[in-house]
């Protein structure tokens, strides 16, 4: 079977993202019709309908798009950079650590005094986790070391978040561990877009600049170094880029797993395993998957506030098992 031309693949993915984005704007618990929704979206007068579109549905769709891009892109970069098929912000504990940072900023009241503390704390948590993982895995970190380190970071950060939430004098806090572990886009507002968006964009730019160096890195770090790749700079960009984008994303929507794992794996054969081609495709794919999940959350259980991570894990966890099975077979 001939592979799709790369440009066609990108066009198809873009179309998919556009369709899911528009669908996300049209689906909601109220019976605001499709035509009314569009009318409200493009009319200049401030009606109640336009308020629903701009203040409730648009931030949700925009955050879904941006967080999908973040997860897809960071998953692809981490897999290329660590040269490990299981690397992903969720599995490596980066998301949990970012959630811990955000939990600390939010429930102590710090982010109420200084709103930027929320994404910055998420970023700091993610940064610490990436550094820790990198140190644990070493230059040629094997799959096992990396995953073990990830499990440890993830368990520790999750336990600390739970502790903080349980100690909070607010009786609702303890129940919110679900949000931080599984993520949700429900009733997020433009405030969250403005808080997290700039950090995510800066992160994307850093990660995207790694496209070419990652191609060279497929030859191995030593070979890459002799070909003029500054491995230290590459590492710094990967670490900061992941921390900035994932940290900011998690701090406003909680940790959403498996998107960063599944999407690059599905798309890799379609782009011929070339990192520089995988990155844009994976970013778009991540956005499409996240927007679709967020639509399904609203369709399957309207009014129940089903968490996003439930859906992504339902698809992602079996995929993960299949990956494990395949890698075991290859080792034999």
């Amino acid at each position, binding site marked *: 079977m001939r592979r799709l031309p790369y440009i066609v693949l990108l066009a198809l993915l873009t179309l998919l993202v556009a369709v899911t984005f528009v669908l996300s704007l049209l689906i909601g618990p*109220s019976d605001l019709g499709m035509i009314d929704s569009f009318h409200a979206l493009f009319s200049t007068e401030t009606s109640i309908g336009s308020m*629903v579109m701009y203040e409730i549905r648009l931030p949700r769709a925009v955050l879904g798009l941006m967080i999908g891009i973040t997860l897809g892109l960071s998953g692809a970069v981490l897999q290329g950079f660590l040269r490990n098929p299981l690397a992903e912000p969720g599995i490596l504990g980066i998301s949990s650590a970012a959630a811990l940072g955000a939990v600390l900023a939010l429930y102590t009241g710090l982010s109420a005094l200084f709103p930027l503390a929320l994404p910055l704390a998420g970023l700091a948590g993610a940064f610490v986790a990436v550094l820790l993982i990198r140190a644990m895995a070493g230059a040629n970190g094997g799959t096992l070391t990396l995953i073990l380190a990830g499990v440890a970071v993830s368990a520790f950060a999750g336990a600390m978040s739970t502790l903080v939430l349980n100690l909070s004098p*607010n009786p609702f806090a303890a129940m919110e561990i679900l949000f931080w572990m599984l993520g949700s886009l429900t*009733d997020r507002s433009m405030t969250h877009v403005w808080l997290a968006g700039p950090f995510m964009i800066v992160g994307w730019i850093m990660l995207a600049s790694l496209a070419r160096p990652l191609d060279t890195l497929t030859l191995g770090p030593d070979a890459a170094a002799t070909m003029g790749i500054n491995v230290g700079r590459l590492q710094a960009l990967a670490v900061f880029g992941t921390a900035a984008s994932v940290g900011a994303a998690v701090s406003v929507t909680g940790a959403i797993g498996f998107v960063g794992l599944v999407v690059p794996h599905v798309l890799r054969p379609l782009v011929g395993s070339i990192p520089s081609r995988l990155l844009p495709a994976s970013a778009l794919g991540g956005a499409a998957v996240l927007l679709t999940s967020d639509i399904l959350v609203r369709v399957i259980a309207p009014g129940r506030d089903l968490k996003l991570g439930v859906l992504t894990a339902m698809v992602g966890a079996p995929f993960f098992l299949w990956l494990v099975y395949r890698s075991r077979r290859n080792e034999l």
Partner: protein
Amino acid sequence: MSDCGSPAISPAPAGIVMRWLRRLCAAALALAFFAPLTVLAEKPPRRVVSMNVCTDQLAMLLAAPGQLLSVSFLASDPGSSALAAQAPRYRPNHGLAEEIFLMEPDLVITGTYTTQVAVSMLERLGFRVEKFAFETSFDDVRKNIRRMGALLGQEQRADDMVETLDAGLQQLAANAVAELTVATYASNSYTTGRNSLSEAVIEAAGLSNLGSEVGIEGSGRLPLEVLVLAMPQIVTSDTPTYDAPALAQENFVHPAYQAVLERARTASVPAANWICGGPFNLVAAQILHDAAHAVAAQREPTDK
């Protein structure tokens, strides 16, 4: 009285017998008259422990001095108890079987769903436990008040309380404003719908409840966009002030909710006034009623 003690018309020889008979008759009468009462009210409980914030409040209102020994710790939380100021007079309990066992109560009153494990243990240990279902209508409230009165041997007080409640409800119904909708909107976007005490209070104030209009039973989530599109005339606000923030209260700062607050009138109904059934429900209904009149007063000039 019966004709048991009919006047003695018999002559002297029968006098002694008659006197004896009459005495017996009086004793029998006294027994017949008081016996059922002594069974019921001979021993009103002296060491009553309440384990539920709702039974706490009814018990505090109805018990005789010294009769009520302990109430739940929630009874002194102004966020959930309308009688928080009175609660510190009683020993607090936390719904633990052990602490209640040590209090040696002769009556434990609790809610149907309160700490069920502890309650069933107390029942196993032989304590008298009376469970109260939570109220979803004013009929339930009346029933619970009367039942609490009977259990505590305070029937008269209970009847008076029901009378006060009914008088208050009648007064509210007498000058209600028609066709206004109110939305209750709490942490995590929760609202109350059909078959809830809040709904009963809202109806008592002459208003209709958005929660039941959109088909919510009991309580459930009211999505923010449904609230915005429905744009009720009144929104109840009881923004809780906890010592620390949580995501559950982020819905109150959402720009779309703020826009609703700009258009609708807010009625600050303290949650404690309609979590549980009791005469304090009238306070909640009165606040809603006043808000409705304020909305109607604002409307009139624009109608002309």
